[in-house]
């Protein structure tokens, strides 16, 4: 593969609450970046209840579980989705993988560190909640994207996650994506509100990374097990993801 001495940008995508659109967004962002000739690795960070493979219609033979348990080289697990877009799938229905010991975490991180130099971007789609793996993937990443939607539970959970990362891991920079909004006005209200609370209580000034509107293309693409930016590139959600992609590249 490529020279693995370069440093990729590691982006962790989390939300706190489940069902906010982390996996869908991460897959589409990875696809978008790869269409811009970037080499992207998507790590399914939901180690015990993986979904990336399902959303992409993959039938995977090997998962990160084998890296942790047998020392399998992650390069042997990689699945190429499209030119420049690779996935490291995780296992589903394996509770042991959701609660790795410190040594197992360190070993997994070491294994990942050995291959990420092959890529321009590493995207981590974390599990929901604030479990250990969510925290150490967020701590590992150079850029933290938090997805939230305009409902109180999603906002509270996103805030809680940011609070933990700020309080315990001293992270200060957070990028917010407001998903599933009816209008740009609604997205702006959510962002301003969240920003105000973050600044007032934590002294954190978040960055506005973008907004993804409500769009039936998203649910249709999930059913077709394809990224929506590929299935319906002109859809509003696709254009929004491309805009976020361009912002990341700029």
């Amino acid at each position, binding site marked *: 593969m490529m020279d693995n001495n370069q440093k990729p940008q590691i982006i962790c995508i989390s939300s706190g609450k489940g069902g906010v659109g982390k996996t869908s967004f991460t897959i589409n962002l990875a696809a978008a970046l790869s269409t811009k000739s970037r080499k992207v690795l998507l790590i399914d960070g939901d180690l015990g209840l993986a979904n990336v493979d399902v959303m992409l219609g993959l039938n995977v033979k090997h998962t990160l579980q084998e890296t942790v348990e047998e020392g399998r080289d992650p390069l042997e697990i990689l699945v190429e989705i499209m030119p420049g877009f690779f996935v490291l799938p995780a296992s589903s229905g394996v509770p042991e993988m959701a609660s790795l010991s410190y*040594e197992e975490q360190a*070993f997994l991180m070491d*294994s990942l560190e050995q291959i990420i130099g092959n890529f321009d971007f590493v995207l981590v789609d974390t599990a929901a909640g604030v479990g250990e793996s969510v925290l150490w993937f967020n701590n590992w990443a150079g850029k933290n994207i938090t997805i939230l939607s305009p409902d*109180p539970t999603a*906002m*509270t959970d996103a805030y809680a996650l940011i609070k933990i990362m700020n309080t315990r891991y001293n992270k200060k920079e957070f990028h917010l994506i407001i998903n599933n909004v009816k209008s740009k006005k609604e997205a702006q209200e959510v962002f301003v*509100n969240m920003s*105000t609370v973050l600044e007032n209580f934590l002294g954190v000034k978040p960055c506005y990374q973008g907004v993804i509107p409500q769009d039936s293309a998203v649910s249709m693409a999930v059913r077709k097990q394809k990224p929506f930016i590929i299935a319906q590139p002109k859809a509003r959600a696709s254009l929004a993801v491309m805009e976020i992609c361009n912002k990341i590249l700029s």
Partner: protein
Amino acid sequence: MVKVNKQPRTKNFCDFLQLIEEEAARFSVELIPIAEETGTGPQALLVLDSTLSAKRKGELAKPLVTQTSPTTERAQHIALPARADALAGAEFFKDCVHAELARVKKSRLPCSLLLIRIDENNEDRGLLNKAAATVEIAIECNHHLAHFDHATLALLLPGLNRNRALRQACAIHQSLSAEITARVKIGLAVCMARTVPAAEEFMEMAFNELQKAEHEAGDIFYSSPNQDDDSCQVTAEERAQLFSFLNRGK
């Protein structure tokens, strides 16, 4: 358990053991090579978590000792079970504290230290040993119990925050009060990941708490308001502000 990153291309078993030793150097583990009867080379490597109590290490290593002649040099090499019957001394305990504090920095989990004083004026060593036996029943295998001074036991509680450590202290105090007639005082110090002191400083913190317990009415003492749990609980005020924009339209 220690895992070796790559499939080792070793010429012999010694090389393989060396690889494991190199990998294990990154963790707080104790390596005990076990040699062949002929003394020609190591046959196995016993890898033990260095923060385990001497008692636990003894339990783990015992089957190996019985398989080897106790008179051989190799058996003496793994003769650490000899320490198992007695409680660990202050120096060994200090090493445990040091290792545990290093682990707090990595795992971000707290740890607590109890100093349990059994009637300072009582010179009867048997009383302290009886107390130690009582405490040992109440603790878990990853807790470390040791002699601190002639009248005091030290108990290191990895992973326990203030509330859990206080509950443990209460349970121990209750057990001791039922078993021995002497006066029991307990001082508690808690180490949180955001400020990890040196081992000596941590032990001094616990000692100061014990001194306060000696002079106060309560039997268990914990002060240091700055050492609250690093709770990330989302407060009512934060929630109220988070949801404020939702209520604007009502």
